[in-house]
């Protein structure tokens, strides 16, 4: 592949905490050299991109992306999701196993990754189901899927209620050093719930689950982690109470990672307003105090990963009474702009925002991307930190337009995305 140089950039590398001027030399899809500071000698015959002082960071890695392929292609395909990702500065996506059929055997892992690679857009990986058909009862082929390239194992939005099953999944997975991810949500307290219990849900007449449903389940999960020694990711933490539980476990020396969705960092339950179903999420939106606690947890590193929690739902599934509407929101294309709002409005340092979007997930999943270093894949995003963006859901590349950011003014715009040194946006 031809060589490329991106000059005159503001380099942002969370792995080394570097935020300053510099340039990148790229060859054969990998970063050849990172030049920090002033002028750079560019050899002849190299394609040059002048960044014009804009921000250049590792491409984002989004570990929680749902599509409808296979089984529900009108919702989203690997292609439409990849196009969304590229437009959002996301260079790597990890597909959730809740397709139809579920990604619960090595052939399905292979299918997803092959189809993804054939698109020649972004890096597409699969997460495997932890139990067969995500039934929460029978362990899936974790070893074979791991061998086929699955990056981690999860039943997605389904909670493995049976503690014995989860205990076996965790201890078995430990043999492969495989990462297990679970949503902390007590299945009984959250049954039928579409909002967080509280004054708002009561007033709107919506069935709510108490915030402690998250903490209760997390306490169980962490006790099993402690017992089995599994590598573990707390998937989509959303309450201050659960963050306390997580902090306690970390203080005891337990190595557990945690992710949060961009939606829970940007919105609170008030956004539901007059039954706006685009804000019907799972987990449901929380009070502002929880949102603030999550932002603090990103700041101090308690949270390792920010995801888009990309969950496409077509209009017919959203234009329903709130309680009947499908949960979830698309988020790949707006991920970076939304995350940058945490810098502009909530005072987070840029590197602290980018870390859980790049280096955090890369090191959790053992990827060599997510850094600006010689030898790393040239997966990059160039963005204008200050350019205003008005989100128009109708123009999103996703096949589903259920964006809670629709009509919102964001600040921060993706100018270019490179995957393996090739420009995909």
């Amino acid at each position, binding site marked *: 592949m031809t060589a490329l140089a991106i000059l005159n950039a503001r380099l942002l590398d969370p792995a080394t905490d570097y935020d300053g001027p510099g340039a990148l030399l790229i060859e054969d899809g990998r970063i050849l050299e990172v030049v920090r500071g002033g002028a750079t000698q560019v050899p002849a015959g190299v394609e040059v991109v002048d960044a014009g002082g804009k921000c250049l960071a590792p491409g984002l890695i989004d570990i929680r992306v749902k599509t409808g392929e296979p089984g529900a292609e009108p919702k989203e395909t690997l292609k439409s999701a990849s196009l969304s990702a590229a437009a959002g500065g996301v260079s790597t996506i990890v597909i959730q196993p809740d397709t139809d059929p579920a990604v619960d055997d090595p052939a399905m892992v292979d299918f997803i990754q092959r189809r993804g690679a054939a698109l020649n857009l972004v890096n597409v990986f699969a997460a495997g189901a932890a139990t067969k058909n995500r039934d929460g009862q029978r362990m899936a082929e974790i070893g074979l899927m791991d061998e086929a390239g699955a990056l981690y194992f999860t039943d997605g939005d389904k909670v493995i209620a049976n503690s014995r099953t989860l205990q076996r999944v965790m201890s078995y997975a430990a043999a492969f050093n495989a990462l297990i991810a679970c949503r902390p949500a007590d299945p009984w307290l959250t049954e039928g719930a579409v909002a967080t*219990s*509280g*004054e708002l849900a*009561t*007033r*709107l*007449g*919506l*069935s709510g689950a108490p915030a402690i449903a998250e903490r209760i389940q997390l306490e169980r999960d962490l006790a099993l982690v402690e017992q089995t020694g599994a590598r573990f990711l707390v998937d989509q933490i959303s309450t201050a109470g659960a963050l306390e539980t997580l902090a306690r476990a970390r203080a005891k020396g337990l190595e557990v990672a945690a992710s949060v969705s961009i939606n829970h960092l940007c919105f609170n339950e008030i956004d539901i307003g*007059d*039954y706006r179903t685009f804000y019907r999420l799972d987990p449901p939106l929380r009070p502002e105090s929880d949102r603030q606690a999550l932002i603090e947890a990103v700041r101090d590193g308690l949270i390792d990963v920010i995801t888009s929690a990309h969950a496409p739902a077509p209009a*017919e599934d959203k*234009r*329903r*009474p*709130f*309680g*009947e509407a499908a949960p979830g929101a698309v988020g790949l294309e707006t991920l970076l702009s939304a995350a940058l709002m945490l810098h502009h409005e909530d005072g987070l340092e840029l590197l602290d925002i980018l870390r859980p979007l790049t280096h955090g997930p890369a090191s959790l999943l053992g990827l060599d991307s997510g850094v600006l270093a010689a030898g790393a894949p040239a997966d990059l995003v160039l963005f204008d930190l200050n350019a205003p963006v008005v989100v128009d859901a109708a123009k999103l590349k996703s096949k589903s337009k259920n964006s809670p950011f629709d009509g919102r003014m964001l600040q921060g715009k993706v100018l270019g995305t490179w995957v393996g040194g090739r420009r995909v946006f």
Partner: protein
Amino acid sequence: MTDSATVTDLISERLIPFPSPHFLSAGDLNPPAALGLLDLADAFVDFNRQSAKSLDLMHGRTVVNIFFENSTRTSSSFEIAAKRLGADVVTMPVQASSVAKGETLIDTAVTLNAMKPDILVIRHASSGAAALLSQKVGCAVVNAGDGRHEHPTQALLDLLSLRRAFGDVGGLTIAICGDIAHSRVARSNVILLSMMGARVRLIGPPTLVPGDADRWGCEVFHDMREGLQGCDVVMMLRLQLERMEGALVPSTREYFRFWGLDREKLAWALPHAKVMHPGPMNRGVEIDSDVADDLSVSLIQDQVEMGVAARMAILASLANLRGAAR
């Protein structure tokens, strides 16, 4: 009794435009508008007591009642109200199963809207369904109950019954008792009765009263004796049978023992206290027949009669808002 010509004149005189394009929540009203509607409804009560009960206030208008949940009393109350105003009425009971076949609420709304009704009356099992419908149609929408959210016409008819019994609801202490958590009647009544100056109390077991109900500006009690002390009105709510048998309360007999209204418990309220119930009643569960059927204390029969008059007032003024009636 007033003669028929005078009543008709009185109705025209009191006819007001509805304060909001739709009636989705008790919060769509304001105190003067609520009083105006009550005055109009009072005239309709007199009118309904005549033998000839047909007006042409809504002549040529079409009212569609669409009930996604079974209901006999509310749908017939709306149907009678609309017919007495001279409107053409279609009542569509929609079985839950036909909706499950794939037609969404929005599809139904768009279809109905194309038939150009003037007023849609909707009951649906999901909170917010009436509000959603109102965004998709060009006619006025009346919420006849959406999930556990609101049932605003019930609140207005309760207010009408109370005003006729007490003269003024301002300063009354009203206890709403039972399954507050799942009750749309309770939510609408809390809004409207508080708006009109009543003090509202909520009484029920902790599993049936939302933990944050005190933030509605109501006093919350779990003990009937304590809660009923000094009350002018005791409004009982229906307890859905599926919520008993161990789910939220241990048994019907235990519920009746502690929260069912009988003579003994009624005596804890003020001597002149009146009893209300939105119906249909579970006799012997939340209310003893002895109390429910005693016309000297019970307003329950009145509530049904007031239901028709209140709904006539609502429909007539909504029609009035959308172009001069008649």
